[in-house]
């Protein structure tokens, strides 16, 4: 279970800085408010979609969830563990597929997966067994002993996902996982996530960020719409349709996410 409340984060844009006032070319520091007020509640056995346009603050929010950057304000709890005070305990309960998902090209897929298993504190045998089980689940058995150097996008994605799930975490966080995947690979991923949601699959808590409406409609049990660093709506797809009085989810999303832009246009 993941709970994010009133999360906020601002950055000082590059170019500005403490010394910029002293130099001739320096611009004054520009503060970018990436995340203003993001709220999210993702229960177990449930796929929660984090839907928002590019630059809405999805990736920044998920990076804060993973403890990579410290939030300016707000609370993040993973299974009741505060990410701010106990980041490592929280990370042990999370499998994160981040925006950056680079593999080690000189290592085989198996070595990539087992390395993360060991970093998560697994024994060697357990990590190897888990790598094989995941390879079966993602249908990447033949890839396991190959170096990841020549992998296709889909193969990389599968390896990165297996790497993130190696310690069988109760919470799975995926940042735009379908980016660069073809139809078949996307379908396979969807099937895997659906299975992970079921009690047999472990009733995982899955948070899934995307900017693609169809993904959300097909997969997610509930949606959190983020725009301009704020959570602007939350609920099931049907609830959001009812809230906006629209038939089409895309229209509903545009209404919810681009309120300011629509107001300006009128």
């Amino acid at each position: 279970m993941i709970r994010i409340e009133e999360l906020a984060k601002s950055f000082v844009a590059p170019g500005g800085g403490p010394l910029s006032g002293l130099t001739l070319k320096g611009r004054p520091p520009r503060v970018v408010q990436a995340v203003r007020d993001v709220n999210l509640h993702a229960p177990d056995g449930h796929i929660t979609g984090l839907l928002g346009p590019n630059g809405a603050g999805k990736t920044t929010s998920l990076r804060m969830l993973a403890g990579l950057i410290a939030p300016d304000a707000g609370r993040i709890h993973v299974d009741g563990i505060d990410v701010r005070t106990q980041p490592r305990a929280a990370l042990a309960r999370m499998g994160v597929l981040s925006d950056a998902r680079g593999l080690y090209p000189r290592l085989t897929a198996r070595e990539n997966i087992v390395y993360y298993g060991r970093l998560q504190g697994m024994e060697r045998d357990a990590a190897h067994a888990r790598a094989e089980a995941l390879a079966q689940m993602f249908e990447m058995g033949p890839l396991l002993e190959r170096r990841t150097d020549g992998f296709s996008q889909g193969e990389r994605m599968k390896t990165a996902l297996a790497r993130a799930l190696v310690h069988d975490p109760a919470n799975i966080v995926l940042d735009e996982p379908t980016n660069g995947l073809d139809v078949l690979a996307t379908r396979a991923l969807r099937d895997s996530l659906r299975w992970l949601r079921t009690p047999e699959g472990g009733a995982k808590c899955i948070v899934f960020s995307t900017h693609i409406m169809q993904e959300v409609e097909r997969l997610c049990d509930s949606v959190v719409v983020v725009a301009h660093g704020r959570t602007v709506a939350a609920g099931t797809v049907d609830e959001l349709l009812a809230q906006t009085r629209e038939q089409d989810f895309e229209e509903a999303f545009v209404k919810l996410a681009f309120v300011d832009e629509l107001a300006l246009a009128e």
Partner: protein
Amino acid sequence: MSRLQTLLTILRKELRDALRDRRTLLTVLASSVLMGPLVLLAISALVASLESSAELREVVVADLDRAPTLQNFFERQTYTVKAAPADYEALLRKATLSDAVVVVPKDFEEALVRGDAPIVEIVSDSANQRSQASAGRVAALLAGFSRERATLTLALRGVSPDAVEPVRVEERDLASTQTRATQITGMLPFFVLMAVLTGALNAALDTTAGERERGSLEPLLMNPAEPWILVLGKWGAVASVGMLIAVLACFSFLPGQWLLRSDRLAAMFQYGVREALLFLVVLLPFAAAASALLMAVAIRCKTFKEAQASTTVVMLAASLLPLINVFSLGEESPWYLWVPALAQNVLMTHVLKGEDFSAAQWLVPLFVCAVLSAGGVWFVARTLRSAAAR
């Protein structure tokens, strides 16, 4: 899993990764480890050719027929007298001719008899090093001729030869054979230092800037391992690669020594297992410090290429600092030992001279290396998160 196990996991992975980069590894091995022995070989070839020309006992004279007395003297000194080629000046300039040429004036014999002190020229080219060496020998030979003439003249007049030589001069050289050899082998420590640096460079960049460029740093930090454990593991792997190169470079001089063509140089350049081990005692801390420093510079860079440009400064400093020792003609200053790269060069030069260095002399650079390593690791650990998020 304990911190130590995590650290070892990271260390093993990074080592495996570095050792699988065969092409880079081979380039480093070929360029840095073979460099020393090759230089040694080139020096020995030069020394051997100088020695062989000295052993030949030849003297080249232009217009020899003008000076039978001189020829007689040369031959009595068991020198072979050779006639100079007609275009000897051009040949000397082109360095085709490696012997200085003695030029005898027209009325040499008559002037000699009259006591007019004829002028004999020794022609050489100072840009032609071998002719310079030969000029020195020929000058000494001609001085011997003058002395003999003077002694004979005085003896005929019943004067003791001591009258013209009231003071006898004898030279005594305090340098040991090994000290003299360092004039030639003085650049070897420099090559070893560069080998260690280039060995560590690639691994240092790959574990920091390379990790950022691949986009693998962010997922790595989403594991529950503490950043400083991650960095310690990475640093351990980079330092191990640097140390491996150091070991290979130090021991590569042992077989390199067998290739020495000059017996005299081989006798002067005493480099055995003891010297190799002393080199390592100096170099291993340096490899650790250099690794940490390179990683600290590289972690600020987003790409491998950018990091290569930034680390050039470190490489340049490490190659220029030892020159202070090479070019300083006077005494070593105590502050040399506080400067990384320079200190290692000083200590290794001591080893080559056959002098031991004291524990105190070794502890100063060790302390500097420890501070550099700790500082580098601390900086990388501190920067890691912000580097991944950018």
